[in-house]
Each structure stands twice: as C-alpha cells, then as structure tokens.
C-alpha cells in the first residue's frame, strides 16, 4: 500500500513544484549550515593534528610547560632516564621583521646536531663543501644565521646570503640567511613564515636565558612508551607535562572547544529555523491535500497509513534537501576557508597565544562521508519531527468533511487552554531556571533551559498569533478598508498556516535581537573591565617580550615615579591552561583597589606583594570553585607552588581565558626563572611632562627593540577598540547566522504567501467575481504579508527580550564564566520595523501577482 501512497504523494509534489522546491531549500539551508560548520571544525582539528605531527617528527614523547618554558638542564635528566634514546630541545618564538611589510616570523630555535635524529629536512642548495649535507642545519651554529622556509623566501623575495632585519627583545638584529629550506612541512606552519635558528642563539636573542619550550624525545624500541612516560613524570618537576604528541593535539583541541560549541549552537539554530519551514510546508501540504486524504480514507486507507504517507513525504524531502545541503555545505566551507584566509580571526579570541600562530594555516576542507551521513540523518530527522504534527492532523481528519466542498471546511483549531498553559509553564520554568541556577551546572543544561523556552513559545504561537491579529484587525480595517479586514481574517481562519511563518520570523528576529544585545553588552562589560585594569600614567609595550636588561634603563628615566612590570603568560591548573599575570604587585595594587570584588584589601596589600598569597580572577574562581582563603596549587617547572587566595579580581576583559592567576613578580621569578616583561605601567612624578618622558624612554631604548609608549587613556581607548574588534571577529559566524536566519524567514514568508494564495484561490476568485479588482486582490495578499511580518516582529521582540535575558545569564557564563547586564537595542528594534515590512511586502510581490492574475472562472471552479 505504501508504494501506492508514495506514488500519489509524488504526483502531488510534482504538481506543486514550487512548494516542493521551497521545502527542499528550507532543509538544504539548515543542513548546509550544519555540514559547513562540521567541515570547518574538522579542517581546524586536522590542521591542529597535522601541525603537532609535523612539529613532533619521529618524537614519541614531548615535554612541555606553560608559555614561560622551563630550564634547559631538564634535558640532562631526560637523557639519563632509562628508555630514552634521543632527545632534543626546542624553543618557539615570534618576532617582527623590519621588512617592508613588517611580516611576523615564527622562529624555531633548534639544536642543529640533535635535530636531525628526530626530523629530516628537505633542503635545496645547501653548501656541502664540508660534506655535511646529511645535517643541513649544522651551519646554524654560525652566529646570527637563520634558515628560512621557501614560502617566506618567495613571498619576500629573499635568497641565501641576504639579511633579514629582525626585532628581538634584546634589540634589532640582522640575521644572515644561510639557505632556503625546501620543506613542505615547514611551509605549512604559520602561513609559511618560518625561520630556524640555533637554539642558543635564539635563547640569547629572545632573552630566554637558559629556558626552553619543549623537549622532543624518542623512546627505545621494544619498551612501552607509557612506562617511559611514567618514569619521566616521576623524575621531572610536576609542572612539566610529559605527553605523547597526540595528547598534545588533544590539548589544543580542547582549547578550541568554546569556538566549536558556538559553531554547533549556530548550526542547530539554522536547523530549527528550517524546521519551521518544513512544518509550514507540510502543514500546507496537508491542507491542500485535505480532500485527497479524505478520498483515500474513503477508499480504505487506514489512519496510520495516511500518517505514514506524509512522514514518507517528509523523509524523502528531508533526504533530497539534506543531500543538496551537504553539497552546498561543502562548498560553503571551502568558500569560507578561502574568503577568511582561515579561522585565525575566530580562534584568536579563544586560544592560548602559544598555540594560535602555528595553526594559522588550517588544512583545506575535505569532504567527510561520515559527516555527510550524519547531516543527512539530521536533515531527515528534522523533517520527520517537523512533519509529525501535520501528518497526525492529516490522519485525524474527518473524511466526510474532506469529501465535501471547500465551504464546509472548518476553521483551523487554535490550541486549547491546556496547551496554552503548558506553553506558558515551559516559558516560565525556563526563565526561572535561567535566573536561579548557576553557570556551574553545565552548558547542556543551560542550553536546555533555552530549548524549554523555545518550545513553550512555539506551543503558544497559534493562539498568540490570533491575539495579535485580532488586535490589529480594527486598525487594518480603518486604514485599509475591507481588504485589510480580509487579509487579517485569513490569518484568523488559518492560524497554523500563518504561525509557522510567524515562528520562523520569531526565531530569526529573536536570534538577531539577542545576539546583537549580547554582543553589545559583552563589548561594554569587557571594555569597561579592561579600562579598570589599565593603571598608571603611561604604558610601554615592546614589539616582543622585554628583557630585564632592556627594562632597567627605562626605570632610571627622570620623571618616572614608579614602574610596574607585568608579564602575561600561561600556566597549567589541573587539566586546563590558565593565564598568569606576574606583576610588581605593590605598585599594581596601589591602583587596583576598585577591581577587587572579594577579599580584604589591606590583607591583599600586605600579602600579595610579599609573595605570601595570590589573587585569582572571578572567572577562575567560578570555574575552579576556589574562594578567598582557599589554597591554590600550581605545578611550576621547578616545584609545586602553594599559596592562599587572598582576593578575587574582576577580570571580564580577559573573559575568553579560562581564568587568571595574579602573583607578584618575585614569586614568579622564584618558581619559573623567567624575568621577561610584557608591558610596563609607569607612574610619572607630579608635574612631569608626558612628551619629554616618552621621548626619553624612546631615546634610552633606541638601540634595542622599538617600544610603544602611550598614555593610559590612549591605551584604554585602543583597548576598547581592540575588544570591540575581537568580539566582532569572534562572533563573525553569528553575524553570518543572523543573515541566514533572516534569509530562511524570508523564504518561509514567500512560501506561506504563495501557499495561502493557492489555498484561497476559490475565495479570492469569489472576491474577483463579485467585483474585486486585481489591485484589491494584490492588496489583500500584501496586507496579509505585512500582518504576518508584524506578528512575527512582535513575537520576535518578545522572544528576543527573553533570549537576551537568558543569554546575558547563560551564554556569557558558558563562554566566559560570568553574567552580563541585560541589553536590548531600541535602535535595532526601530530599524527592524521598516526592514521587516519591506521584506514582507517584497516577499508578497510574487504571490500577489499570482493571485491578481488568476483566472476567475477556474478559481471559482477549483475545489
């Protein structure tokens, strides 16, 4: 029987090609967004793995610490450990060149002798006079020499023997290019902008002292790698991580979790909006096939087979739409990768700086059949869920009514009070949960609250649409006469037909309102939080990290009262990377009374500069569960650091980090042996001239790296701009999603109107027959579109307000571990009124044309 019913359905879709096409497009849009984001994600992860793989070479284990690195003498312990055959140290630094484009360069500091045991490099044109072609990096032992990647050489027009001017913490240096490395692996790192130096030269040039970033080692064959790893863990300080290269790529993968979760949420949003479209199309198909269904029932088709027929329809449409969506999604992913030059802008906000630059060149997207199957399944499931209610309605229709003419059709039932109450209950329950549960409850549950609210609103939508339509009916009558009333009545008669489109509009607009509100609120919170962290009168930044030798002369410049040296780095806390700010806390705290949200200021003033305690950020406190008085334990490269938490600091400006630990610089030096400085905050003597001090600082360091000296106000202003830009970049995909939401809603609107016109062909024909002009018919259709737009706008604003509130409490907590103030943009609302009306009227143009041009005789004759 099903084959016959499918045949009947197929004929129906063939006769309603536009409805079929719009439905298929609806599914395709949702699935394409999902597939594209999955593909982009995969591309990112594959890039991470490849990068780690390429950096690892033959290494079976890697030893790392935070960004600060660890003492190089660790390598002696490693070499002396049973099971280790070879080991090689490496440092990884970034610097700016003084080439025309001021290109940045990733510098790998390696041990030329040991390196060849782990990694072979393909080279071209190596001087082999000394017979060392087997060790092409050997010549790096020559002072101030560098080997560069061929990609960099090609881009900058460099060749062996040329010099590259480089800005290093110790000053400007000209590095001689020994030769160009023709190695694809190296070319794929950091966009090919890679230089390789001797590790000792690099340590010196970058002020790393005797610290290194990584040890790669090879374990003996036949010995279990895990046993060697355990042995090393026992022998090395706890602050060092001993991991297999794959585990390291897992760490990096974890660092991108937030971005990937964001992608997932947005792609699911696209599917939800699409589901309205499918629901709409299926409801309309049921309406249009009302009579056909009645005939089938009269001919002996059981209810369940009617339901199955519509569900088969939906799954077939879901399958075709998903297939197209997968194809489109793949090309979107490819285009996205090409257009944005990779995911760098998005990732930059979410990843530790030590990891980020290396993955600046994500692998090109590849087609993953597994994702395709997943997307197809998701598309079909979405279609089936969306079609369930219409299919059920079809199976329950009364055949007797269906077998009568159109006049006997009953008004569509809106939802009864019990369901309305259920909808209201779900919305209120969702809001209560959003309001009274903490961020610590987890992302899934928090998103669950939003789903509750969404379901609640969807359940109430037909009734609410009727209320709003009833409210605007008198106005429509007054303003547009009988056409206005007729237009509104068509919504009142078929609220489900209209409410599906209203739903798509509601979700789309609410998404726009809430994301916009969230982004603006986030910007304001982060910017104002950042401004409070900028202390002193002047700020000094170097092109790279500044060394102590570099900083000392600055302290001696006349007019300077005090200098707060700050190093911004990362360290490990349990299984996550957290930021570490090592500062001259006595100076820092003089300015920072107002950023302490918890803790006794006097105790903090006393204990933190003395190294007897630390401060932690509010986000760190929320995520770790630590409070004032608890003991914070950090594994450092030298020993275990245990200090009580003396206060909590407002640090939303750095909300994308897992949290921040603040400690005194002396304490940091003691445990990390790293005296570099990221920036200086300078207090001037009263009456000191800013310009004179700035000039003097620049003169003092003129032989070293260039520095940027700015007033704190300039820094705050610049910081606000940077935060705004970073947030815009981070939410770049949300902006795209906002566009998709609007686009899908527009298609939904066109769909509804076209169907509405066909559905009411006879009614509109009667209006024409009794004297209605073509213009009046077109006006009715356009007014109906405008009314649907207004209802969508009103419900979108209501949902937008609810979502913005929920997001201010949950999304911020998910992404940053804190909540932000509610912000709803009146300007955006004012802007959306004309936009929605224009879109609605635009969408109605074609349906209005169809209605106005319909043949009156055939319209009246249609059943």
């Amino acid at each position, binding site marked *: *029987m099903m*084959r*016959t*019913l499918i*045949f*009947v359905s197929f*004929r*129906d879709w*063939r*006769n309603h090609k536009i409805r079929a096409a719009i439905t298929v497009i609806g599914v395709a849009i949702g699935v394409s967004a999902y597939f594209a984001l999955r593909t982009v994600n995969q591309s990112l992860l594959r890039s991470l793995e490849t990068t780690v793989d390429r950096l690892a070479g033959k290494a079976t284990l890697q030893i790392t610490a935070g960004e600060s690195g660890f003492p190089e003498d660790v390598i002696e312990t490693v070499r002396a450990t049973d099971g280790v055959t070879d080991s090689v140290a490496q440092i990884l630094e970034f610097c700016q060149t003084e080439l025309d484009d001021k290109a940045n360069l990733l510098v790998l500091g390696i041990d030329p002798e040991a390196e060849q045991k782990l990694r072979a490099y393909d080279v071209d044109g190596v001087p082999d006079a000394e017979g060392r072609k087997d060790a092409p990096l050997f010549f790096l032992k020559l002072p101030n020499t560098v080997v560069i990647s061929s990609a960099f050489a090609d881009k900058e027009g460099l060749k062996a023997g040329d010099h590259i001017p480089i800005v290093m913490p110790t000053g400007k240096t000209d590095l001689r290019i020994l030769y160009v490395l023709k190695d694809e692996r190296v070319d794929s790192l950091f966009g090919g902008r890679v230089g390789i130096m001797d590790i000792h030269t690099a340590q010196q040039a970058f002020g790393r002292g005797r610290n290194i970033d990584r040890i790669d080692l090879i374990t003996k064959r036949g010995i279990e790698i895990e046993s060697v790893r355990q042995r090393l863990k026992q022998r090395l300080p706890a602050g060092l991580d001993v991991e297999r290269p794959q585990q390291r790529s897992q760490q990096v993968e974890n660092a991108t979790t937030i971005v990937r979760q964001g992608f997932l949420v947005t792609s699911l949003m696209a599917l939800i909006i699409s589901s309205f479209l499918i629901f709409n199309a299926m409801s309309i198909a049921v309406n249009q096939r009302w*009579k*056909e269904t*009645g*005939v*089938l*029932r*009269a*001919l*002996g*088709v*059981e*209810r*369940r087979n009617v339901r199955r027929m519509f569900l088969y329809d939906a799954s077939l449409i879901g399958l075709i739409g998903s297939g197209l969506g997968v194809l489109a999604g793949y090309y979107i992913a490819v285009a996205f990768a090409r257009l944005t030059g990779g995911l760098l802008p998005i990732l930059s906000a979410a990843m530790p700086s030590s990891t980020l630059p290396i993955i600046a060149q994500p692998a090109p997207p590849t087609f993953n059949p597994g994702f395709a199957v997943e997307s197809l399944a998701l598309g079909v499931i979405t279609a089936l869920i969306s079609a369930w209610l219409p299919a059920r309605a079809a199976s329950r229709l009364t*055949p*007797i009514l269906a*077998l*009568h*003419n159109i006049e006997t059709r009953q008004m569509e039932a809106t939802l009864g009070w019990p369901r309305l109450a259920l909808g209201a209950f779900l919305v209120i329950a969702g809001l209560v949960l959003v309001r009274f549960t903490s961020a610590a409850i987890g992302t899934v549950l928090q998103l669950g609250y939003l789903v509750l609210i969404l379901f609640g609103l969807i359940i109430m939508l037909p009734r609410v649409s009727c209320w709003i339509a009833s409210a605007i009916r008198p106005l429509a009558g007054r303003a547009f006469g009988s056409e206005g009333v007729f237009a509104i009545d068509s919504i009142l008669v078929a609220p489900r037909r209209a409410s599906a489109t209203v739903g798509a509009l509601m979700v789309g607009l609410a998404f726009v309102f809430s994301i916009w509100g969230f982004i603006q609120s986030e910007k304001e919170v982060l910017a104002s939080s950042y401004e409070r962290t900028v202390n002193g009168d002047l700020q000094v930044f170097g092109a790279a990290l500044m060394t102590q030798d570099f900083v000392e002369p600055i302290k001696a410049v006349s007019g300077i009262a005090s200098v707060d040296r700050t190093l911004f780095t990362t360290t490990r806390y349990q299984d996550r990377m957290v930021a570490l700010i090592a500062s001259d806390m006595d100076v820092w705290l003089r300015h920072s009374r107002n950023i302490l949200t918890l803790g006794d200021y006097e105790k903090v003033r006393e204990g933190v500069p003395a190294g007897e305690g630390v401060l932690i950020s509010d986000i760190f406190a929320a995520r770790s569960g630590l409070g004032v008085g608890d003991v914070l334990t950090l594994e450092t490269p030298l020993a275990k650091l245990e200090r009580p938490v003396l206060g909590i600091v407002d640090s939303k400006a750095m909300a994308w980090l897992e949290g921040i630990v603040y400690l005194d610089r002396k304490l940091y030096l003691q445990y990390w042996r790293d005296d570099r400085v990221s920036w200086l905050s300078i207090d001037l003597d009263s009456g000191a001239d800013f310009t004179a001090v700035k000039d003097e600082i620049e003169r003092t360091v003129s032989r070293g790296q260039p520095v940027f000296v700015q007033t704190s106000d300039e820094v705050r202003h610049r910081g606000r701009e940077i935060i705004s830009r970073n947030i815009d970049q981070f939410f770049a995909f949300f902006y795209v999603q906002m566009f998709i939401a609007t686009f899908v809603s527009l298609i939904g609107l066109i769909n509804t109107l076209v169907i509405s016109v066909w559905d009411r062909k006879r009614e509109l024909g009667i209006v024409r027959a009794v004297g209605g002009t073509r213009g009046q018919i077109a006006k009715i259709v356009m007014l109906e579109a405008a009314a649907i737009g207004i209802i969508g706008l009103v419900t979108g604003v209501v949902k937008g307000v609810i979502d913005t509130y929920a997001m201010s409490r949950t999304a911020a907590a998910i992404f940053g571990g804190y909540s932000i103030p509610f912000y709803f943009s009146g300007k955006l609302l004012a802007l959306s009124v004309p936009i929605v009306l224009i879109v609605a009227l635009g969408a109605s143009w074609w349906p209005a044309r169809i209605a106005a041009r319909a043949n009156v005789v055939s319209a009246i004759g249609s*059943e």
Partner: protein
Amino acid sequence: MSQPGRARTIVQFEGVRRHYGNQVHALDGVNLEVALSERVAIMGPSGSGKSTLLHLACGLDEPTSGSVKVDGVNLFDLDDDSRTRLRREKIGMIFQTFNLLATLDAIENVSLPLRLKGLGWRESAKRAEAMIERVGLRDRARHKPDELSGGERQRVAIARALIFEPPLLLADEPTGNLDTATGQEILTLLDEMNRDLGITILLVTHNEAATAHCDRALTLRDGRIVGEHIG
C-alpha cells in the same frame, strides 16, 4: 423496514440514531435492510438525513445509537482500522462531486483501489483499462480529471468504485452535478453494473427519475423513513 424472505442481507440498520448535539437529529431510529444485488434509492428533502445514512453505511460516521451491519458485520464493533479495511474490501462509493484525485489520470484513479489492496502495477492497470473501456472512456484513459467533462468524471468515479467488484455500492447524488441526459447515462451504467456484476446499489438522490432504475425507493424525512415505493 425489513424484507423477510429475501436473499442475503448486505446492509442492515437497526434503530439507528445520529444526533448532533441536542438540536439536530439527522437520523432518528432508522431500521433498514438491503438485500444483495438490490437497488435501493433513498429520497427526501435536504437535511432529511440521506447523506448521514450513507456515511453510516460505509462507516465514515458513527451512530449515536443502534447498529449498522454490512454483510453481517456490525461496523461499530470494529475499530477504525478494521472498519477502513472492510470498506476497502466490500464498499464502493461514488459522490456528487466525483472526488477523483486531481493529480492522477483516469487509469490511475481507477486502479487506485486495487493498488491499495496490494495488486501489482501491471495487473491493476490492465484491469483498470478494461473497466475504463467498460464505462466507455477508452479514449480518455490518460486524461486527468480537469480534462474530463462532468459525465466522464462520474464514469471514472464509477469505474473506480467498482474495479474491485465490491458487493455494495453507495452512491451519493451521483447525478446531482450532471445534466439530464448525462445523468440518465450514468443511471443506465449503474443498471448495467448491477446486472452484470450483481452489485447492491444504495443510491441517495433528489432525482425522481432515478427511482425508475431501483427496486425500491425509500423516503426519508426528519431522520425517519416515512415511505417506501416498490419499483
């Protein structure tokens, strides 16, 4: 109105009432027996309960009280699915408004009941073609309903109703939308089907001429059978 001593009873109404709320009594205690191969016309003014009687006879509507048996089976002892299956096996229906599927051509419309019963494409089409020819529409077999005249549509509807040779045909105003001559042709066609296939016909009509084609004519008024005319 039982007819003792007649052939096997195919339709039996016993004390059937169909009330819509307290005000509308569409049927109010109807007793009726129709024998196999009998042709019975139901007449009466609008609102007398004719269509309701027909809807109850095919199980599309449910009585407020009383029982309706088709071929000895009380329809309302069955669940909806079983009732639907019984309809599929034993009852053909034609309507004033034809109720053909607009997206299917004549052959496809006619073969639909066979295909719903699980018969293969080819066999269904073959039998449908034969039936289409029998109702005189061989040249119109591949036309869709909107390409056919009213009489032709009704012929297709009759062919569809009888393709699986049901023992009972329910006809709801089959000539209501047709001109006199075409209506006469349809009634003649029904006569032929009754004669050739032995099908029972229960015909609801306003058309006095239709009674001439029936063995009995019953008159309904206010939900009750108030008269019977033996043809």
